[in-house]
């Protein structure tokens, strides 16, 4: 679409790198727990020791937020993987046979936003990372089923599939050998864009206290705990929010860039 199909790709990569590289580094060095509370050093100013200062509990803000980002992205990645795998399998089944029931269940997602699923799960079982992952994955499932089904059908109408059938190949073989490799690029694009949505969902659920519970910090809960300090220390609220935005923007642009690259590859194949 644009003259530089990879510009969005590069920009998305850079945005994600800005957050994810230091976040991973800190998680490797410090683990995924919150930095220690240090009441002697509350609201410490920006310094070499604390590049963004410390929060009302004397925790290093940068470490806290980056660890939170690491945990949030982990939750998002697991949810999207889950939704992609289950959604792809169900989508392929729905493509192979007229499966009203699968598409009907996919429609269920139209009415069940993650916050309602999480509300039910938290009421029933209490807050847990598993429940949050389930809620985000269930919300992402319908789109995944729909897209897989549509893409698989466009492959299934090709002549070589008919040839393969005439050669006596079963549906599982055709799906695995012909359909899946062909729709894999599309699924990658979809998964990347879903990550952006999953990060937003995680932030919202955690903010409401419906996400993964303490002690592991995450971005939504960081925002919730800093919110009351917005008047005196607006940066406390700005930093976790900006981190969420960078991550979402990064995954969105990466997804768009991949989509453009995919379209360009398609156009080259069929002039």
């Amino acid at each position: 679409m644009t003259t530089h199909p990879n510009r969005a790709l590069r920009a998305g990569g850079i945005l994600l790198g800005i957050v994810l590289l230091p976040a991973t580094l800190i998680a490797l060095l410090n683990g995924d727990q919150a930095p220690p509370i240090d009441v002697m050093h509350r609201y410490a100013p920006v310094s070499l020791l604390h590049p963004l200062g410390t929060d009302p509990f004397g925790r290093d803000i940068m470490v806290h937020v980056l660890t939170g980002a690491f945990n949030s992205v982990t939750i998002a990645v697991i949810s999207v993987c889950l939704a992609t795998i289950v959604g792809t399998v169900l989508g392929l089944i729905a493509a192979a046979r007229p499966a009203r029931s699968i598409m009907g269940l996919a429609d269920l997602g139209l009415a069940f936003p993650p916050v309602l699923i999480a509300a039910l799960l938290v009421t029933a079982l209490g807050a847990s990372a598993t429940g949050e992952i389930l809620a985000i994955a269930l919300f992402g499932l319908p789109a995944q089923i729909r897209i897989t089904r549509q893409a698989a059908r466009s492959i299934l109408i090709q002549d070589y599939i008919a040839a393969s059938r005439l050669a006596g190949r079963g549906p599982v073989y055709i799906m695995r050998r012909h359909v899946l490799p062909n729709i894999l690029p599309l699924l990658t694009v979809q998964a990347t864009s879903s990550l952006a949505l999953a990060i937003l969902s995680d932030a919202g659920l955690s903010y409401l206290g419906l996400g993964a519970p303490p002690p592991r910090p995450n971005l939504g809960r960081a925002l919730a705990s800093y919110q009351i300090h917005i008047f005196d220390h607006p940066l406390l609220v700005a930093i976790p929010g900006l981190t969420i935005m960078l991550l979402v923007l990064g995954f969105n642009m990466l997804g768009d860039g991949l989509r453009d690259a995919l379209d360009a590859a398609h156009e080259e194949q069929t002039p």
Partner: protein
Amino acid sequence: MDKPAHRRLPGRRRFLGTMTGMDIFRIPVERLLLLIVASLVIFAAMNLLPGDPAAVMLGLDASPESLTALHHQLGLELSLPSRYAHWINAFLHGDLGRSYIYDVPVSRLIGERLQSSLPLILLAMLLSLGTGIPLGTMAAANRGTALDNGLMGVIQLFKSIPDFWLAMMMTFLFSLTLHWLPSSGFPGWGEGIAPALRALTLPAIALAIPQAAITARFMRSSLIETLSQDFIRTARAQGYSRGGVLWRIALPNALIPVLTLAGIQLPVLVTGTIIVESVFSLPGCGKLLLEAVNQRDIPVVQNLVMLIVTAVMILNVLMTALVRWLDPRLGTES
């Protein structure tokens, strides 16, 4: 897939579908089935808890008497199927049970809370469509120009902002620093329309901005897609000017998928409303749900979730009907 070729002529099926109008009945019936499935899911989540729901609600140090009383109130001594039947029967008759925490009918609680939730969600929807559609049209009409690129950049940015964080930053700017609008709370409609609307302005804007970005982006691609269709060339050959074709021919057609999107985005808007109500301490349904979840007020959670799901489904059916009415081909797109 294994049916003979002649049974599967797409044009013919579509044509017959239009004529018999079967779809007009099929969609609501499917949605009704979905609603039943949804109610089963909700019921299962609330009633198949490991352990005793009454014990969960009352906590560990509950006396046996209060447990028995709550058992009776929740109808726990009945079998699961008859509990489900009781619940659905009551729900259909407008009886949403009794809140355990507040000890008032759930329907009254929800009724009070809807006073801020419903206007908020409507306002947000109007704002997002009212800005997203013109912006997307503007970008598509000036496709490839600096204006288009600039708009798309801003849209991409706003699409990525978490609405509740945007809400906090807007409170900081417009309420705490500039003192233009209240930062939290809701005076109710009894005080007059102006204070209530003022209280809902920031939440609605915060909710609407990311939605408007999504709408604008979708509107742009829908309009560009429509403008590349053959019937646009036909209209030009008929004597339509470039602007005339955009406004009179392309825009109405391009709006149809945008309405579909608005229907799909509805649950997302519901999520946003629940979170934003929490940011602004608005006494809405979202706040009620969160309180109920935290207090394990099972009757409130169960009935409120069911009510929201039902409302979303009904709106979805209405939206589908509207789209189908506008597009006589009956959903042949995508």
